[in-house]
């Protein structure tokens, strides 16, 4: 596409503005099935349309041209907002491609017009790809952000008693998470001056050699710092896996559930729990 074609397209788009925009909005509205209000959709597409006409008027022939900067800006805003609102990639890209048809309807039937339209189509394809890429980038950013939040959320270190902290592990443990758990737990031991830590793995669905390795490392590191770790909540399935994998827990104390582990830690600290009997039943 050369600058002259761009100029001619700009003229067509300006002259037939209302008809084209109406056709475009109608097509896009069908694909979105009412998840966006008409006014909102019209505002968005109008914005893109204005930027597109301005781009053609400035004689830009590719999406990468510097004068297409505004257009790409508007489009990336559009696709980012689509990505965040849960629209699919197709629904996002079709917002661009749907402009082809209304333009073809008004551009005329002669050879020159058709060749202009072919150039226009090519330009729209580039725009569509651009939209798609922005959409994917926005999705990726969203996913990694959520993964990070999940990592933060899923590894709390809670204080159970003076000198006893617990880490309830929920979900799959991988290297990255184990690392976070390890650092958090050890730091919590230092900060709270707790000589006992309970690693509760009730919520861990499966365990493999690598995960076991990480747990062992955490425990040995805690021992080096002068604290003792107890593992609790080993489910029967996991106990069998541990044995069949040949993992040796050595001298590490394991308890069936968190209550037993707490009781063990309390006892190690010479704390006795006494049930008060002889109280009148209410």
């Amino acid at each position: 596409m050369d600058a002259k074609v761009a100029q001619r397209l700009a003229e067509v788009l300006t002259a037939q503005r209302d008809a084209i925009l109406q056709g475009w909005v109608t097509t896009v509205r069908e694909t979105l099935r009412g998840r966006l209000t008409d006014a909102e959709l019209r505002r968005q597409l109008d914005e893109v349309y204005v930027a597109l006409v301005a781009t053609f008027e400035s004689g830009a022939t590719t999406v990468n041209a510097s004068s297409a900067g505004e257009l790409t800006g508007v489009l990336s805003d559009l696709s980012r907002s689509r990505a965040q609102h849960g629209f699919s990639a197709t629904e996002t890209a079709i917002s661009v491609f749907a402009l082809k048809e209304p333009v073809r309807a008004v551009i005329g039937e002669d050879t020159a017009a058709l060749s202009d339209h072919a150039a226009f189509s090519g330009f729209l394809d580039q725009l569509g790809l651009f939209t798609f890429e922005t959409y994917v980038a926005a999705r990726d950013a969203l996913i990694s952000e959520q993964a990070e939040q999940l990592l933060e959320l899923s590894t709390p270190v809670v204080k159970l008693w003076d000198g006893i902290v617990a880490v309830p592990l929920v979900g799959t443990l991988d290297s990255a998470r184990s690392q976070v758990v390890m650092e958090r737990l050890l730091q919590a031991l230092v900060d709270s001056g707790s000589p006992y830590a309970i690693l509760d793995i009730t919520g861990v669905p499966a365990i493999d050699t690598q995960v076991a390795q990480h747990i062992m490392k955490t425990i040995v590191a805690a021992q080096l710092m002068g604290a003792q770790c107890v593992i609790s909540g080993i489910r029967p399935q996991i106990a069998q896996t541990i044995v069949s994998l040949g993992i040796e827990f050595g001298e590490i104390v394991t308890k069936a559930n968190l209550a037993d582990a707490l009781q063990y830690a309390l006892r190690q600290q010479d704390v006795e729990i006494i049930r008060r009997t002889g109280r009148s039943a209410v």
Partner: protein
Amino acid sequence: MSVDRIPVLTLGDVLLVSIQVDLEDQLALRLQDDLAERIVAVGARGVIIDITALDIVDSFVGRTLATIASVSKVLDAETIVVGMRPAVAITLVELGLQLPGVRTALNVEYALDMLAASRLAESPVVDLADTAPAAP
């Protein structure tokens, strides 16, 4: 500022050493000598080594600590290393380094408790019934 020896403090029958600088060869040897002498001179039953200030514990420092522990043990004193930082502990584990014969505690307070507890365990059994006044 260069330090040519690490101070050894005496707390009753416990020796307290706080390592604040990088442990170099000469310094480490000197510390071993000093400690051995002081244990005998004071009749110490426990040695507490505080490494809170150490960012790095390499195999040399690890070996020094283990040696101190062995020497103290021969002289009938228990060695407890306190205040190891999480990062240091993780590094030691990742490198597969161990501190054989060295007990650890989170801080000096716990270490003193541990020493008191093990002394209690060692002391001869006192049967309270014997010392109690005979029942009429």
